[in-house]
């Protein structure tokens, strides 16, 4: 029992990262039908910014979080303005291919500039250590991402459900022209959505740094695949659903290998696809009702 509980708690760190990415992903998907595969590189950009602040410049941790968010937001907005805006209104396939292309360009440029090796991430001392809950260990660093994600989750759900911005997002996703005729400025809402989703990715990226102790150019790939699947499972356009599904995937993936013989550990990435296909076959609209869309 303790073993099971321990596995679940260990998954909360990665689960929070997937949840944050999936939430941002599902917002842009719900709003403009964008399968944004460049989201992984927006995430990576935040991690690299934080890495420079912490490891190279040896500046304080709070500044790394702040600049990580800023780094992701800048790259996220640039991608939106330069790559997606010019093709606004074209089909999902066009957007999908452009996202994939941008993702390749950003990742390989990063490899060219900074090489593909792991970059050690300085971890502040207050993030080190564990709390004991009976016989179960909880890492401080896990709590440092899990608790903020709970708060972020509440804020996002409130934002989408109750604020003018949330209503504008949902209206625009349903009928853009009608929403515009009520005075909603589509471009403004899209920009704000990208800022929010990039900021979530930035926070996830800094967390990745202190949870795994290193960042690298390809870190977005695995994370974004998980986030994509989580957004589908959560019901595309449903932020709360995406967050819950992010945790389901991370915890499920961990338990999947925890109870498999040790030489099958390499099968871990398989789990997310198994879940993905089960959902697509039996409940293609996702587990939860979409609210943006």
């Amino acid at each position, binding site marked *: 029992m303790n073993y099971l509980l321990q596995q679940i708690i260990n998954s909360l760190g990665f689960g929070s990262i997937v949840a944050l990415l999936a939430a941002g992903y599902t917002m842009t998907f719900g709003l403009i039908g964008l399968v944004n595969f460049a989201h992984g590189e927006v995430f990576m950009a935040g991690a690299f910014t934080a890495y420079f602040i912490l490891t190279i410049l040896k500046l304080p941790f709070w500044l790394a979080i702040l600049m990580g968010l800023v780094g992701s937001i800048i790259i996220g907005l640039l991608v939106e303005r330069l790559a997606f805006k010019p093709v606004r209104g074209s089909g999902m396939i066009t957007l999908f291919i452009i996202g994939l292309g941008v993702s390749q360009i950003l990742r390989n440029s990063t490899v060219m500039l900074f090489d593909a090796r792991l970059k050690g991430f300085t971890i502040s001392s207050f993030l080190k250590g564990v709390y004991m809950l009976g016989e179960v260990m909880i890492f401080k660093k896990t709590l440092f991402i899990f608790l903020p994600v709970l708060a972020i989750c509440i804020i996002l759900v409130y934002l989408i459900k109750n604020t003018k911005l949330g209503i504008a997002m949902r209206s625009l996703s*349903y009928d853009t022209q009608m929403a515009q005729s009520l005075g909603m400025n589509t471009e403004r809402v899209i920009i704000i959505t990208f800022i929010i989703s990039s900021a979530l990715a930035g926070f996830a990226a800094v967390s990745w740094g202190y949870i795994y102790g290193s960042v690298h150019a390809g870190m977005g790939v695995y994370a974004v695949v998980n986030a994509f699947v989580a957004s589908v499972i959560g019901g595309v356009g449903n932020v709360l659903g995406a967050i819950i599904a992010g945790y389901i995937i991370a915890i499920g993936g961990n338990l999947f290998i925890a109870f498999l013989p040790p030489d099958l550990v390499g099968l871990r990435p398989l789990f997310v696809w198994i879940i993905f296909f089960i959902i697509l076959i039996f409940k293609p609209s996702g587990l939860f009702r979409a609210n943006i869309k």
Partner: protein
Amino acid sequence: MSKNPLLKLNNVLAGYGKMNVVNNISIRVNQGEIVTLLGSNGVGKTSTLRTIIAQTDLKKGEIKYKDINITHFPTYKIAELGIGYCPEGRAIFGNLTTKENLQAGAYLLKSRQKFKENLDRVYSLFPILKERSNQIAELLSGGEQEMLAIGRSLMNNPNLLLLDEPSLGLAPKLVELIGKTLREINKEGVSILLIEQNAKMALEISNYGYLMRKGSIVLEGTAKELVADDRVKEVYLGII
């Protein structure tokens, strides 16, 4: 027509892509008036309204609202100036609840007080919407959706309301209610440009009207003149 024009279309040519649907149309709506666009299906009435809110490709001519040239304004700016639009076919947001639809309609309102007032007014015009306020709008009946669409277009306190076939497919009793509602909001100072299949109802409440055929205006005049005109009778009794 010595009154101030609120909205003026001057020789407007517009359409979709290469196709022109609206051919050199000139229309004016004076402050405080209800003006009707008549004509059978497919003559470009809806496209004319959509041209005003910049949802067609405008190729020639100009549109003025309160002496501001809005010809090349984006849709949301036109809404900000006080032009409300209620499209045909119950274009409500099916993913939102009834109340959220009305909140979406009030997007441009700054004060909560004003929102509350407008919400109460819509609820008193259409009490059924209050009962359905937490229901997903997709699940409302056709008539309720139409009422919601009209109610939503009133939430922003428009100065000029563009209404596209508000009575389409509604029970006679509802048509009457909508006619009454339009007169009421007109009395409060909202000018209306109306498209209506129900020509009798439309001309009863209108001050002025235009008859369209194949994308052009073929006749205009006061409501009284139009009721008596054979061409108007022909459109509504003969062709359709």
